[in-house]
């Protein structure tokens, strides 16, 4: 891994970032890259995803935004997302907020996902709408 490169695991994906800069516990990244990895877009009214906007707390603007960069760690904290990082390998893992998980689960809408079969063909769960699905887990171990 290049010394300036940093990996962020966000949702289903791990992304190698070139613009990331770590300052203590803070993680400053170009807002374009933040949008690409997280879906949160910096707008005048705050950080927005779909039709949800989260305003930056008044008086704390400089902790969140500086020019075309934003602090992904502060945003994650604001959203209640856990952050786990490995300094040696420069990997940050940003999880989902418990509130969001609870909302998603208790909506009773089956979450969608996309996974490969053994031949590498991708399947989305939602392709099978209209069936009575038994979603069954197993493992080789």
């Amino acid at each position, binding site marked *: 891994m290049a010394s300036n490169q940093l*990996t962020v*695991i966000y949702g*289903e994906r*791990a992304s190698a970032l070139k613009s990331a800069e770590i300052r203590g516990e803070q993680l400053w990244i170009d807002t374009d890259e933040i949008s690409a990895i997280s879906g949160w877009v910096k707008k005048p009214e705050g950080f927005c995803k779909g039709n949800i906007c989260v305003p930056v707390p008044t008086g704390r603007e400089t902790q969140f935004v500086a020019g075309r960069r934003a602090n992904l760690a502060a945003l994650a904290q604001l959203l*209640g*997302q*856990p*952050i*786990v*990082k*490995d300094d*040696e*390998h420069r*990997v940050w*893992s*940003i*999880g*989902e*907020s*418990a509130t969001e*998980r*609870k909302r*998603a*689960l*208790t909506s*009773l*809408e*089956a*979450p969608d*996902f996309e*996974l*490969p*079969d*053994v031949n590498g063909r991708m*399947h989305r*769960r*939602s392709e*099978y*709408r*209209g*069936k*009575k*699905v*038994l*979603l*069954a*887990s*197993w*493992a*080789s*171990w």
Partner: protein
Amino acid sequence: MDLPVWQALFQEMKEQGFLPIAVAFDSAGVSAAKPWIDAANPTYPCLIDQKHLVAELYDMVNVPTAVWIDEQERIVRPSEPAGVTDAFRTMDRTNFSMPPDALGELMAKRQSYQDGLRDWVTNGAKSKFALSPAEVIRRMHTPSDDHVRAAANFRLGEYLAERGEAKSAQQYFAEAKRLRPESWNYKRQAWALEDPLKAGGPEFWASVDALGAGKYYPPIEDL
């Protein structure tokens, strides 16, 4: 392994719109899961979930667990053991034989689970096994801060393990296990990455024994 069981039920009920989707929680990916899939030769989707994403999305803490999803993509039964019991705990650990009564209880549980599935496929929302929304929610675990932090740790460990950093990965697996001790998926996957035999080895049995009167597979009330 249940892949052949789901295949038989699929053959039996596919004309009625029944579809199993099997998901393998295997950080080692295709190489680990493929022999089992080849042996079962399923004609329903058999997917590989290296990152245990489905476990997180559907709150599955063990295998085999299953969720029932209706035609409108609504969850009608949340994550629960899929027709299994704690019978394996009575196994003779040298020759893997089970006392007849424990084996009988396991077979009966399998049967009643499959009969429940048949009832749901035939009767849909009218089936007593298709739970009301309130009952589905009552049976779910509420995700806590510890759960989501455990998942973030597990994801980081899995990322490092995949890149050959097995030793660094173990500390994050350890933290995931500490934060979510009820997840056998975290425990057994971490063991399996250290040594494929470890997930069913002495560490596994010691953890099962530590349950005491607690259950490895929580019994389902109605199935």
